[in-house]
């Protein structure tokens, strides 16, 4: 045990654990997504590979691995090959500061929140690079859409994060969780005494997270019916597979941050037996909601997407920010 806690080895273990966590999640969330979509549409979903379809991800991965990685002529080869990695890496780095349990955190960074959001923006850049370097009309249109969409949704997301930051007064994600100890009304989402609009903030965070990860109903980057596969049109085999993994890794990261900021992280809802289990329960409940939303709502039109952000989310999140600061100033400390 003492060997495990020495710093270089601990980091190595954490790295492997995060790689495994992201890989497994990406593989099995695809299955969960397809199963969930099936259930919502009253059909069983994939059920041929293995008992009840449990080996479907293995079959998918084997298929993707066995395909040729095609780099079309005329592409910017370096950027074309770099883009999938650039999408996946920030999500993995972000997970390094997420506290899964009281001590179960790869790096207990005191600017964890900043790190997550700073690296989260690289995701946009990478998708734009993939679209730009593909030398494909669909991919370029998709890249332009991704940039304008993510710029629009980054703002309310950060405003909401600042609201939580002002309430908690720290950027250390583990410290934010510790402050939410006790019953579930101590979770940030229920702290109406600190900011009467706290549930609204959570909803805004959730919507922005959907938009940032390019999930339906905001999947403009991969609008199948209009843009083939958007920025990923020219990617074959595992290049596409990595983008797919990155999508789910980003969802996991977004939901992790949502759980930490609003739903009390590893704290239990009734003040006892806090631990990793609660974190995972909340995380997967939130991820299920993401899947649920995807199979409920059709894709929005692009101008409506921008209207939603600039006309509703940004003013409301600004209002919550002002309200939170007013409460903070007027409250007797």
């Amino acid at each position, binding site marked *: 045990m003492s060997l495990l806690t020495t710093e270089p080895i601990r980091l190595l273990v954490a790295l492997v654990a995060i790689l495994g966590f992201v890989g497994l999640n990406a593989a099995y969330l695809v299955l969960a997504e397809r199963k*969930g979509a099936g*259930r*919502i*549409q*009253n*059909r*069983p979903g994939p*059920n041929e590979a293995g008992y009840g379809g449990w080996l479907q991800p293995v079959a998918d991965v084997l298929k993707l691995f066995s395909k040729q990685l095609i780099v079309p002529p005329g592409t910017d080869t370096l950027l074309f090959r770099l883009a999938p990695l650039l999408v996946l890496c920030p999500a993995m780095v972000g997970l390094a500061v997420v506290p899964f349990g009281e001590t179960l955190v790869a790096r207990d960074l005191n600017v964890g929140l900043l790190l997550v959001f700073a690296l989260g923006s690289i995701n946009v850049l990478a998708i734009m690079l993939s679209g730009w370097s593909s030398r494909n009309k669909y991919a370029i249109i998709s890249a332009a859409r991704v940039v304008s969409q993510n710029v629009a949704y980054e703002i309310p997301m950060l405003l909401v994060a600042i609201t939580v930051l002002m309430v908690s007064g720290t950027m250390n994600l583990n410290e934010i969780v510790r402050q939410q100890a006790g019953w579930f009304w101590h979770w940030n989402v229920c702290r109406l005494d600190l900011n009467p609009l706290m549930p609204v903030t959570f*909803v805004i965070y959730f919507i922005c997270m959907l938009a940032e990860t390019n999930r339906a109903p905001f999947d403009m980057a991969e609008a199948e019916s209009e843009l083939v596969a958007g920025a990923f049109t020219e990617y074959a085999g595992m290049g596409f597979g990595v983008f797919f993994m990155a999508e789910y890794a980003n969802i996991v990261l977004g939901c992790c941050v949502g759980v930490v900021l609003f739903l009390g992280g590893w704290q239990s809802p009734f003040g006892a037996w806090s631990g990793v289990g609660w974190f995972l329960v909340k995380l997967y409940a939130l991820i299920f909601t993401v899947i*649920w*939303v995807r*199979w*409920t*709502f059709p894709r929005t039109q692009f101008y409506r997407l921008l209207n939603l952000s600039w006309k*509703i989310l940004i003013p*409301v999140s600004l209002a919550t920010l002002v309200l939170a600061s007013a409460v903070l100033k007027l409250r007797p400390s």
Partner: protein
Amino acid sequence: MKASLLAIPRGFWSLLVGLRVTATQFFKPVVTVPYPRATLPIPPRFRGHIVLTADPATGRPLCTACKLCERACPSDCILVEGARLEGEKKKSVTDYRLDFTRCSLCGACVEACPADAIRFSKNYNLAGTSKEAYVFDLVARLKAEKRNS
């Protein structure tokens, strides 16, 4: 201003209604059938290609080769040949060919038959490698059916 502000909670409420719809569907039973492993019952009035019916007493086809079906067929896909056997009053069928590539399952032949000698089968998953595989010899089919049963 007021209308556009009211649109926000209203729109949000409609989203929740949508989520409720999918959530209730989520817990409803599966309605699809995994086809090759399970099949739906075929409805009684299903129209497969026609087959000859046998006389339950003798086991021979009921068809008397009157050729009314041949004449009734709008696509000209039926060919009937018959002959009178020794010591019998009626003719009996010797050859009944159905060109299923042209048949549209209209049922005019079944309606025209005075002896109820042809009926719709329940064969739907037909497959073949040549066009000729769909010219069915219905007399041979009836014999094979009798042998199998």
